């Protein structure tokens, strides 16, 4: 199980903690409200200091619970949006790669190699995956760098990073996380 009960991710952990506090505080609030109601039925008056403080505590707890519930909901929807952003970024990365490869007129084999270069593979493992000689891969990468007008691997990779960083991703309002997860199928 990858996601344990106590999550490693900071936001998830925050949400869990918040939920636990909400639960505890809501139970406390209910206890105080029950107490206040019972006292009222037994004829307590708000002017009685002890009873007044108790009522105030109950109300304060309730307000606290309401605010934390709101906070938890905001946090959860932010986490949702972050997921969406990541998916958009992934989709965008794929688009950027396709666009560049088309522009440079890379062959099918070169596209494959280029993707593996972007994924951080060295020539030797690429040759193993593609079951070709290391020399072939070297020739292909040289051709890729030449077609893309870059001097070598680092500059080639940075082309994509730069492309992703330059344009601000606008998130279309219509892309709800639901719609995206549907389309990710």
């Amino acid at each position, binding site marked *: 199980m990858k996601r344990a009960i106590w999550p490693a991710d900071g936001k998830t952990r925050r949400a869990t903690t918040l939920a636990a506090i909400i639960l505890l505080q809501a139970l406390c609030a209910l206890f105080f409200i029950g107490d206040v109601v019972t006292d009222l039925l037994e004829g307590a008056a708000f002017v009685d200091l002890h009873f007044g403080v108790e009522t105030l505590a109950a109300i304060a707890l309730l307000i606290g619970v309401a605010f934390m519930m709101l906070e*938890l909901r905001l946090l959860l929807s932010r986490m949702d949006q972050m997921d969406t952003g990541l998916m958009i970024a992934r989709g965008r990365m794929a688009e950027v790669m396709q666009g560049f490869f088309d522009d440079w007129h890379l062959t099918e084999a070169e596209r494959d190699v280029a*993707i593996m270069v972007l994924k951080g593979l060295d020539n030797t493992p690429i040759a193993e995956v593609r079951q070709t000689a290391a020399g072939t891969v070297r020739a292909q990468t040289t051709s890729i760098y030449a077609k893309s007008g870059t001097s070598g691997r680092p500059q080639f990779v940075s082309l994509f990073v730069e492309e992703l960083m330059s344009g601000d991703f606008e998130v279309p309002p219509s892309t709800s996380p639901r719609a995206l997860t549907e389309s990710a199928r």
Partner: protein
Amino acid sequence: MSILSDQHSGRSGARDIPVWDPLVRLIHWSLLATIVVNGALTDVEGDLHEWVGYVALGLVAIRLVWAVVGPRPARFTAFPPNPMRAIRHLRAMRAGDDTVHLSHNPLGALMVYNIWATVLAIGVTGYMMTTLRFFGIDWVETAHELAFDWLMISVALHVAGVALDSWRSGVNLVRAMVSGSKRIPHGKNVE
């Protein structure tokens, strides 16, 4: 180009979709704990039994509030108490439809409402027994015990339903109620 379209690399096409927020999960397992404690462990005449009962009532109350203000899968609107939907769901199941429901499936939704209502009934009749007005009145005690029996039947059906649905859909529902996300196998329809 499969390398590009693979969204969750190394996950053999399954995808994790967060459905149950931490509050829903905490309430679920806490409610189970109160049922186990009060059903099997506490002295039914004792104070502890009474207090654990109040906690159970409180848990359901908080869940009902969260079903109005909480995130989408936790809300009433995600699993309306609609018997017609449940019947349609049963028919679709018999026809071999194994669509994965992100919130409760329509049949499970009915069970959810049933369990909440039963816990409320047990809590209220239990409280009534502590009041002077209803203390020692037979029907209240009988109702309390009958409701508890019904709860046991419901829980058994609930567990059976979870097992059946997990087996049919390939989504481990118990895991989803622990980790919060449903891992949807590749190629399943989602509703």
